[in-house]
């Protein structure tokens, strides 16, 4: 035993090489390298079970994390290539089984496991992860009912994200064809295993990103489907990437993943959850035949209602016509009044007639024929008294006649031509005006002589007579002759 004060004992100020001591100090690199070799040789590949803690994905794509149990912790790293191939998105707290190589990191005096593959440590752990994710995304509101979009009643184009092979797509297509033949766009994806989640999410986002005027018609409904399987088989549909893509999708989505009892987070995020792919097709489209029948029924009902409307209107019109007062009834009061007035008129007239005849009888009673007769007799008597007696007139007429005769005889004696009877002649001018003096006669060239038996013309001067006769020779000759004849008679 060496005392504490022993030279040999303990550390001096300077390191002294000891005699017989061949253990030269090692450099850190040497020991680190030795350690590394030892660790790697000794352990090589290991499978570790532990809970993920401090999970961190660096910008480089490498993943850093720790695996721990209740007493110990070991650092782990997943290089980028392997990190992308993980079947699930690691989360803190998830119990995993990591397979990899144990190694050291001399720069930090660390040992760690370089993980090649990592799996969730059993179903319990998987459910744990599921619940964690569900709680996290639910808290973000990805599953909120108010986010749910209504499905179109009759989609024009249906996008289906699923595996292009297998019964799922067949079931969907068959049921769609049965109900209502539709335009279906299948976006083929892996539905399980490495890269599946990425493809599924990519397809959903791809559909959502389509524009209405793109070469590929934008579906108005998307179905995300996968057949039944274990929770691990369906795990892609629990991946955050897929769930977010579904929640972000601008097109209504029906999820149909697994059987009815399997509920994935995709189902929570989708607008509708169908228990099976076939059920998804049923949700997607109505039954065309039913619709056609319904439309037909509507047409019939509309026609019936239209006809009923017309016949109702007709009926109402008839009713109104029936309700309209009859003309007879309408005129009845007036007619009655007219009748009343007419009979009143008649009665009044008769009354008046009776009155008049009474008055007449009264007046006519006064008219006695005797009265008239006496008047008549008086008049006749008066007339008789006035009779003209012709004798009175005849004497007067006779007397007047005598007087007239006497006067007429006297007048005849005094007639100017009376002396002509006794051979006298009366001298006149050419115009027959009596000339009673020589003086008057000498003023005329032609004179007339009126005799008892006629008259004749004479000229006081022969020359004047000739001169006057010459121009009127033709007329004068017979006259002269006649005059001469008459003269010769004297």
């Amino acid at each position, binding site marked *: 035993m060496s005392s504490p004060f022993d030279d040999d004992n303990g550390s001096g100020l300077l390191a002294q090489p000891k005699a017989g001591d061949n253990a030269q100090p090692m450099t850190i690199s040497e020991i680190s390298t030795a350690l590394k070799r030892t660790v790697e040789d000794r352990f090589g590949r290991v499978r570790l079970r532990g809970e993920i803690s401090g999970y961190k994905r660096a910008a480089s794509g490498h993943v850093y994390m720790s695996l721990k149990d209740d007493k110990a912790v070991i650092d782990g790293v997943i290089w980028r290539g392997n990190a992308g191939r993980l079947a699930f998105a690691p989360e803190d707290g998830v119990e995993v089984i990591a397979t990899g190589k144990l190694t050291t990191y001399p720069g930090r005096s660390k040992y760690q496991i370089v993980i090649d593959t990592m799996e969730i440590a059993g179903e319990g752990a998987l459910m744990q992860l599921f619940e964690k994710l569900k709680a996290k995304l639910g808290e973000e509101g990805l599953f909120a009912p108010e986010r749910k979009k209504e499905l179109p009643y009759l989609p024009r184009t249906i996008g289906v994200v699923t595996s292009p092979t297998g019964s799922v797509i067949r079931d969907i297509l068959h049921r769609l064809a049965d109900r209502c033949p539709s335009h279906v766009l299948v976006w083929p994806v892996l539905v399980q295993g490495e890269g599946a989640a990425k493809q599924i999410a990519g397809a959903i986002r*791809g559909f959502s990103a389509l524009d209405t005027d793109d070469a590929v018609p934008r579906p108005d409904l998307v179905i995300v489907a996968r057949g039944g399987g274990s929770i691990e088989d369906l795990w892609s549909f629990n991946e955050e990437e897929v769930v977010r893509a579904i929640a972000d999708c601008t097109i209504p989505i029906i999820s149909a993943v697994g059987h009815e009892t399997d509920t994935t987070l995709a189902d929570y995020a989708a607008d509708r959850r169908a228990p099976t792919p076939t059920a998804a097709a049923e949700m997607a489209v109505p039954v065309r035949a039913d619709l056609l029948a319904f439309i037909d029924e509507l047409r019939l009902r509309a026609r019936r209602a239209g006809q009923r409307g017309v016949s109702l209107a007709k009926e109402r019109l008839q009713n109104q016509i029936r309700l309209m007062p009859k003309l007879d009834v309408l005129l009845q009061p007036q007619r009655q009044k007219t009748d009343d007035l007419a009979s009143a008129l008649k009665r009044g007239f008769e009354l008046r007639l009776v009155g008049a005849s009474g008055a007449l009888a009264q007046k006519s009673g006064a008219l006695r024929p005797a009265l008239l007769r006496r008047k008549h007799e008086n008049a006749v008597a008066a007339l008789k008294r006035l009779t003209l007696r012709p004798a009175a007139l005849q004497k007067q007429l006779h007397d007047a006649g005598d007087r007239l005769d006497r006067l007429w005889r006297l007048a005849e004696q005094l007639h100017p031509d009376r002396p002509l009877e006794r051979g006298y002649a009366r001298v006149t001018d050419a115009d027959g005006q009596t000339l009673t003096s020589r003086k008057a006669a000498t003023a005329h060239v032609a004179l007339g002589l009126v005799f008892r038996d006629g008259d004749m013309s004479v000229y006081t001067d022969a020359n004047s007579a000739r001169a006057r006769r010459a121009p009127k020779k033709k007329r004068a000759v017979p006259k002269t002759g006649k005059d001469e004849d008459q003269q010769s008679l004297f």
Partner: protein
Amino acid sequence: MGLRVAIANVMSDTPEQQTPGNLASLSFEDALKQLEDIVRKLESGDVPLDSSIDLYARGDALRAHCQKRLEAAQARIEKIAAGSDGKATGTQPFDTE
């Protein structure tokens, strides 16, 4: 209550919705709903005869539209071809083996 609201909806239809030309942009469901409302309205007998004739004509146009839409529906199955960026670039026929 629902009927009344439905009728009110039909009554408050804007004029452009009434024109047959706008039927094309009308979704099948809306067209069907309008048709149903019109039929109910006609059946209620509350519509004046003249408007009921217009309503009937509108209903008939809606019916023809719906029927055409249904009869035009035919199965066409295509597969999306995606580019390297993950966007859909086109379609090709899809064979269900």
